[in-house]
């Protein structure tokens, strides 16, 4: 049952991603990408990552895509350009390169590349951890203990991004 729904949302995600890269109108592209992000959030729920799913909807589908749509509408790019998608040569090149990459990824992600059963946790241990510590607490614990230094570095990165965005977008300092 879960597997069926997982594949349904997976097909939704892949189909809307395909529509996202083939539609000419940038606004339509952005909206199809939002559909992909929502389908991914549903898949996260089925993978025992409910908090990540909520963050996906809030941060990605909410904040980041609004930023994209804001810039598209600010620059008045809502109309599709005549040369937005490359011609037959570009299409062929993209198809060949992407096909090669998909083949390589499928070989890398094949059955022999799955984690060995010796290092795998017993099934249901993640759900048990979440039942013990809470869905948010299970993620917050390692975030503020094991990964405390990366967390602080991420705050510096975000500060640098804020300053950089203001400096780049401002007409005259």
């Amino acid at each position, binding site marked *: 049952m879960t597997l069926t729904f997982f594949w349904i949302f997976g097909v939704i995600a892949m189909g809307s991603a395909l529509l996202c890269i083939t539609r000419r109108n940038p606004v339509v592209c952005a909206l199809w990408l939002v559909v992909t992000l929502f389908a*991914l959030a549903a898949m996260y729920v089925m993978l025992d990552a409910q908090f990540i799913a909520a963050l996906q909807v809030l941060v990605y589908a909410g904040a980041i895509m609004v930023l994209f749509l804001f810039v598209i509408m600010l620059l008045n790019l809502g109309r599709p350009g005549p040369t937005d998608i490359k011609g037959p040569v570009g299409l062929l090149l993209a198809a060949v390169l992407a096909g090669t990459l998909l083949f390589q990824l499928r070989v890398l992600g094949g059955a022999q590349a799955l984690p060995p059963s010796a290092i795998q946790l017993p099934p249901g241990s993640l759900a048990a951890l979440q039942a013990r510590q809470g869905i948010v607490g299970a993620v917050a614990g390692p975030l503020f203990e094991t990964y405390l230094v990366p967390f602080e570095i991420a705050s510096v990165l975000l500060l640098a991004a804020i300053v*950089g965005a203001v400096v780049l977008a401002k007409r005259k300092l």
Partner: protein
Amino acid sequence: MLLSPALEISAVLFTLGVAGVLLRRNTIVIFMCVELMLNAVNLTFVALAQPLGIGGQVFVFFVMAVAAAEAAVGLAIILAVYRHKQSVSLQNMNLLKD
């Protein structure tokens, strides 16, 4: 067990992102395709967090932080380029070519 389907879907999504970057000329759409690739990697992290521990879900946080920073700076760069060229098409960004 949802690991194998998740890895399959993630591989396809990443490939679609790469194809979009190669196929499109609109800079903003190319940025959206980069976001698609980041999301495919996020799906892999979340799927592998199930058998290998919660660390994968923590990493998704950092990927989201980097994606947000990248989107903010990238769109600011696009705005700055648009002010000079009046266009966001990659065809018009050829200063280094000539």
